């Protein structure tokens, strides 16, 4: 079977649309709500959903996602429960689902067993923010064997590294919009034309910009530079505010971003 991420970007390209990737932390406030939020986000226009696996010490996250992780870990959300969650989601959606998680969670679970389970429950890719390109051997063999994509990241500081990373990327390339950690920002000042110039020189996989995108207008601006945008903290802020009642407001927010992206 073709990887869902690849198929998704091909479809979007054919339709002349940009990808909307949205994020939610698993188990915040509980896994039943996460399940509803994921389906609602797909329903309201997300093309790809990233499910955050909570970690005790998320060094790449700002306050919003740190707090979501803590809320989730308070009732001991674990990776096996998240595999079960995705398995249930697969009864209702065939869109790409990714996990966003820290390397220790993969490593401690057993990297081979982790990727096998991803394949079994049909998780399409994994984003690991504390695994730089140079340490990709931690997962590469298993990722290739199972077809579960390891999504690599590029940052504003990457410069001459961009091409090297793009050359081995599959699925999509995660472009970190700004220095620092996740969290909404008023302004994103990175020079994307310069940063992403190397991507124009070859036939690389699609690229999406994430970190700090807080509304439809910003999403539109970012997507103009590449193939799509990723929104996390803005959604988690809504979940923080409304808890178990966040399904509807998250849906409204996702719909508003979709509309802006398609305008």
């Amino acid at each position: 079977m073709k990887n869902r991420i690849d198929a998704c970007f091909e479809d979007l390209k054919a339709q002349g649309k940009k990808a909307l990737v949205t994020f939610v932390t698993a188990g915040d406030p509980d896994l039943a709500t996460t399940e509803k939020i994921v389906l609602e986000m797909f329903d309201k226009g997300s093309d790809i959903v990233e499910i955050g696996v909570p970690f005790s010490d998320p060094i790449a996250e700002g306050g919003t996602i740190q707090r979501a992780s803590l809320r989730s870990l308070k009732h001991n959300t674990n990776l096996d429960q998240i595999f079960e969650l995705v398995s249930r989601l697969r009864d209702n959606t065939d869109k790409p689902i990714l996990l966003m998680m820290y390397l220790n969670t993969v490593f401690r679970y057993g990297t081979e067993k982790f990727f096998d389970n991803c394949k079994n429950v049909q998780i399409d890719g994994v984003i690991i923010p504390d695994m730089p390109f140079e340490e990709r051997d931690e997962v590469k063999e298993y990722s290739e064997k199972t077809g579960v994509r390891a999504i690599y990241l590029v940052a504003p500081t990457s410069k001459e590294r961009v091409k090297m990373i793009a050359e081995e990327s599959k699925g999509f390339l995660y472009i970190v919009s700004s220095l620092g950690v996740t969290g909404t920002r008023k302004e994103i000042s990175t020079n994307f034309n310069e940063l992403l110039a190397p991507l124009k020189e070859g036939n690389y996989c699609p690229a999406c910009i994430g970190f700090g995108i807080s509304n439809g207008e910003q999403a539109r601006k970012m997507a103009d530079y590449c193939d799509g945008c990723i929104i996390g903290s803005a959604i988690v802020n809504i979940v923080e505010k409304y808890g178990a009642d966040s399904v509807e407001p998250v849906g409204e927010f996702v719909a508003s971003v979709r509309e802006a992206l398609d305008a």
Partner: protein
Amino acid sequence: MEKIGRFGDFGGQYIPETVMTAVHELEAAYDKYKDDPEFNRELRELYRDYANRPSMLYYAEKMTKDLGGAKVYIKREDLNHTGAHKINNVLGQLLLAKKMGKKRIIAETGAGQHGVATATVCALMGLECEVYMGSTDMERQSLNVYRMNLLGAKVTGVDSGTATLKDAINEAFRDWCSNIDTTFYCIGSVMGPHPYPTMVRDFQKIISEEIKAQMLEKEGRLPDAVVACVGGGSNAMGAFYDFIGDKGVRLIGAEAAGRGVDTPEHAATIAKGDLGIFHGMKSLFLQNEYGQIDEVYSISAGLDYPGIGPEHAYLHSIGRADYFSITDEEAVQAFEYLSKTEGIIPAIESSHAVAAAMKIIPEMGKDKIVVINLSGRGDKDVYSIARYRGVELDEK
């Protein structure tokens, strides 16, 4: 061939892409300066004239007689400027930061010793300084917080997680990701992504080089054992490093067993940790079956860390170094013992090393020699030891 920045399986560079370029710059700068005669001349001068090196190797005659076994020598890192071994590393890193043109320094601190050392050298070198410290630690080490403020540093409390050393490191990493162009992260131990474990060890290895020279001068031979406490493990790596090739010298690390390794309240990474990847390195960590990092505990804020430097994990894995778990009670007894026996009040961290040494010394022959690396002085701990003993001290 061994991969760069690895000690066997341990080590590596597990950090977000945002900081990769900066870590490579640091690696390049360190490679350039580490053998540079001018850099080393400046560093040796700072060690001597500012930090008061070499630190003395003291024959603890009363302790030797009292324990009735091996001859005891104490390496007096507590007599360094700022009262601990931490200054050795900070002088090295900040001299490098200056060469790299960095103006802003960040650091994490547990007990506050590394924070104080960093604030001190920033004052000396005219650098801006921000120190991250868990708010729990700020409470137990309020004197050091004030000391850092006196030295002109900004101390930022960290409330997330357990509000101790690991959370301070998380926050320092986040700051570094945000201010990578201007900021140098001065890590306080032999941990983090390559090149830190190697670089920090190199700036601390002067301890073992001095011990070796001083021992040869005093006794005409090498010691039989060197004992040091281990949190992240910088004073121990410093005290061990020059002896690693000398197979006759037993290397012993003392880690914090808190209320006991069979209770949930300890920080004994070697005894109870599992292989993991965290804070930039592959090493041993105290963690649960899903890889969530444990809350750890020790009476000593400086040993209260759920991981250990990768070179220690390696030395342990090949059997070159042994690691003892020392409880709060054993450490406090050693704290009191050394104070009364030798008139030296050791840091509660270093007291773990004293306690470990006291386990082996009586079993060893009188012709044997043990060196205890006394990594810091205990003035900062007097209040917490009094509290531990149930003594109320009014004047603060």
